[in-house]
């Protein structure tokens, strides 16, 4: 059961994600805001939590804050670790130190970062992160994990502008020692990095994204806490920087106050075409281009931006969008929060991350915030919005993935549950039957037709009074005649005479009077027998409501249902079970019951 505990919330989350995502388009078509959908999602999650059917692990929006990162480091970790560490500007000094200390062994280590720790933590390359809820993230380049302001472990439910909590880590350099591509990026502390799976061998091509905003060392304003994730390619090779859309302006162009544009198609300068994303501003770069795309920014427009536009940094902003941003490094313009805020909504995300434990969706980036903070928060939100980050998540949930595939199935079948196997004995029969019924051929329809006809038939026949023959007397019960006739006929056919039939036969064979008396006798018998069918024949009614009163329900598929006399055996598969108010998920279940 314990091992199951993480599967159920994951399953539910995946179901929720599937449903919400599939509904998104519909909602948009209907003209409803995305917010409605998000509200719905939150409602759903809260209800699940309330029902206490799950352990509430992964459903908490603030899991990030509460989850432990267990770092599993490869054996050759030792040397790689030192390198980045050296070049790093330690944010929260003590954390890193402790981290380093732990790691001094160099061998495979599993680190459990203290939950209360305020990040940022430098995580070297080659590390696999595992959250408390079991999600695995592989880190290919050294990253800096910081805490998003929204998910900071504070009681406030909503993200807040958090100037302070971010340990004021200005800028941390981030290097990828192993990759040839020199990407050095300074990661902004306030961003939460999930996964940076950057192909090590390819310098720039499809940069999946950069969660962390990389600011080249050369950036003069490195101290500026910019919350965007930026990946800054640091060397020349990057020159034809695949820049994100915003950068449509050749550098030579003077500032053209570019409005925040929705994802621009590839700027001419870029070799890359598809750019993911978000509306960026393209600001002509005054400084050297060589490596980085200048953060475009209409200088005059946003005075709030302290950050020097001229940074020769490339900021990849995949923040808001893109699920698997192929390589684009969007130029992320350090913009005003407004621009960012306008961006968020457009994500279609279908990133692998969505099914992860981190419910980053909950981060509300709509809240108005002071510039810096807003920037950072929006950035963090953006970064938190994983889709942009090409997150490679290895979910260890085999069942989960299996169920995700079946997620839609579940959704579909939720409403019309095909197999409801109650825990009572009866369930097996039902399951058996329903499947049989599924395969029931035309017979069913024929039966139904026949049944309908029959219903009419009995009514019609009842109306027809046989005025002649033995039933001459005006008997109240027409059924008697019918019965007699039928019974007689059948008895003759069968060659057997029941006592009643004999009586009736005798009665009917006599003349009218005796027949009537016989009839009356027969009638009495029959009526006595038939009428009281209502009372006293009830099959212990109290059983039935109790039987199905239970809340313990299994919804699953069956492999085999077997019965011997009154012993039942159930071989079930792929099911969800609500037992004792808690939900469980299984891929195989075996049961025995006595009826």
């Amino acid at each position: 059961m314990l091992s199951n505990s993480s599967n159920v919330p994951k399953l539910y989350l995946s179901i929720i994600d599937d449903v919400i995502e599939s509904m998104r388009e519909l909602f948009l078509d209907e003209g409803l805001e995305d917010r409605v959908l998000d509200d719905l999602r939150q409602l759903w999650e809260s209800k699940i939590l309330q029902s206490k059917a799950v352990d509430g692990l992964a459903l908490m929006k603030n899991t990030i804050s509460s989850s432990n990162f267990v770092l599993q480091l490869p054996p050759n970790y030792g040397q790689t670790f030192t390198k980045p560490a050296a070049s790093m500007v330690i944010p929260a000094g003590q954390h890193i130190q402790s981290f380093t200390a732990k790691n001094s062994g160099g061998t495979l280590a599993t680190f459990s970062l203290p939950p209360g720790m305020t990040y940022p933590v430098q995580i070297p390359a080659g590390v696999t992160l595992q959250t408390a809820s079991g999600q695995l993230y592989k880190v290919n380049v050294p990253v800096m994990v910081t805490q998003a302001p929204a998910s900071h472990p504070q009681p406030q439910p909503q993200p807040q502008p958090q100037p302070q909590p971010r340990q004021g880590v200005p800028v941390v350099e981030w290097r990828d020692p192993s990759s040839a591509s020199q990407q050095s990026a300074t990661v902004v502390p306030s961003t939460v990095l999930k996964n940076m799976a950057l192909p090590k061998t390819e310098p720039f091509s499809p940069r999946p994204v950069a969660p962390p905003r990389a600011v080249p060392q050369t950036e003069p304003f490195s101290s500026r806490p910019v919350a965007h994730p930026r990946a800054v390619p640091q060397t020349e090779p990057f020159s034809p920087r695949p820049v994100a859309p915003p950068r449509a302006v050749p550098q030579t162009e003077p500032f053209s106050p570019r409005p925040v544009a929705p994802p621009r198609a590839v700027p001419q300068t870029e070799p890359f075409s598809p750019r993911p994303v978000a509306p960026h501003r393209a600001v002509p770069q005054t400084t050297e281009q060589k490596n980085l795309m200048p953060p475009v920014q209409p200088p005059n427009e946003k005075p709030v931006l302290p950050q020097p536009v001229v940074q020769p940094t490339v900021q990849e902003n995949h923040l808001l969008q893109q699920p698997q941003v192929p390589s684009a490094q969007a130029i992320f313009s350090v913009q005003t929060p407004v621009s960012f805020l306008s961006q968020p909504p457009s994500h279609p995300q279908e990133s692998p991350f969505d099914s992860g434990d981190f419910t980053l969706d909950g981060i509300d980036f709509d809240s108005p915030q002071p510039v810096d903070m807003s920037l950072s928060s929006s950035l963090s939100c953006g970064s938190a919005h994983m889709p942009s980050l090409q997150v490679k998540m290895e979910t260890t949930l085999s069942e989960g993935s299996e169920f995700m595939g079946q997620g839609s199935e579940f959704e579909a079948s939720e409403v019309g549950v095909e197999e409801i196997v109650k825990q009572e004995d009866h369930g097996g029969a039902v399951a058996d039957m329903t499947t049989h019924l599924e395969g029931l051929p035309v017979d069913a329809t024929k039966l139904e037709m026949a049944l309908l006809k029959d219903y009419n038939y009995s009514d019609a026949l009842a109306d027809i009074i046989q005025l002649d023959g033995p039933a001459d007397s005006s008997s109240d019960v027409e059924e008697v005649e019918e019965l007699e006739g039928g019974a007689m006929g059948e008895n003759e056919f069968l060659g057997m005479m029941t006592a009643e039939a004999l009586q009736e036969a005798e009665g009917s064979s006599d003349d009218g009077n005796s027949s009537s008396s016989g009839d009356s006798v027969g009638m009495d018998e029959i009526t006595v027998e038939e009428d009281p069918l209502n009372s006293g024949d009830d099959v212990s009614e109290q059983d039935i409501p109790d039987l199905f009163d239970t809340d313990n329900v299994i919804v699953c598929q069956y492999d085999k249902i077997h019965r011997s006399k009154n012993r039942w055996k159930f071989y079930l598969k792929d099911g969800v079970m609500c037992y004792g108010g808690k939900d469980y998920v299984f891929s195989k279940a075996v049961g025995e019951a006595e009826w």
Partner: protein
Amino acid sequence: MEPSDDVALDIIITNVVAVFRTRCHLNLRTIALEGVNVIYKPEYGKVLMKLRKPRITASIWSSGKIICTGATSEDEAKQGARRLARTLQKLGFKVRFSEFKVVNVLAVCSMPFAIRLIDFTKNNRPIASYEPELHPAATYRIKTLKATVQVFSTGSLTITGPNVQTVATAVEHIYPMLSECQKPLRK
């Protein structure tokens, strides 16, 4: 011993089979879906419904014919059948409980002595038949009663007949013949 000495013998009714009709067409699928304690057997075109109170299993056909098995007495069979009809009525069918008939009663009985089957068969040549290679019991059919008695060498009998009365009569009938051929006690 008087023939009526079978008073000492316990005739235990193990099974009573009864049929009745509901006089209306039954939708097996509806019964299967909505009924309680039902097993649908579409390949046989019937639904089995099991009752707990009189332990009864009923085979229900779509024509409205129902066979009730498993009861231990005729009354129980009837009561079970009525309950069954009542259940079907509650499911929405216009059920009329008609033509209830006990079709078969199976009982066992044990003689206090062993029996020499070969002698028994020889004495009752046409009526009794015994093929040890096929079946270890001698079969004695009473035509008048339409009952069949299977006699085992241990002295156990199984009697099947159309009703309980017939069964009792059959035991009485066969008892003297059996006691003639009883094996003398060896010990």
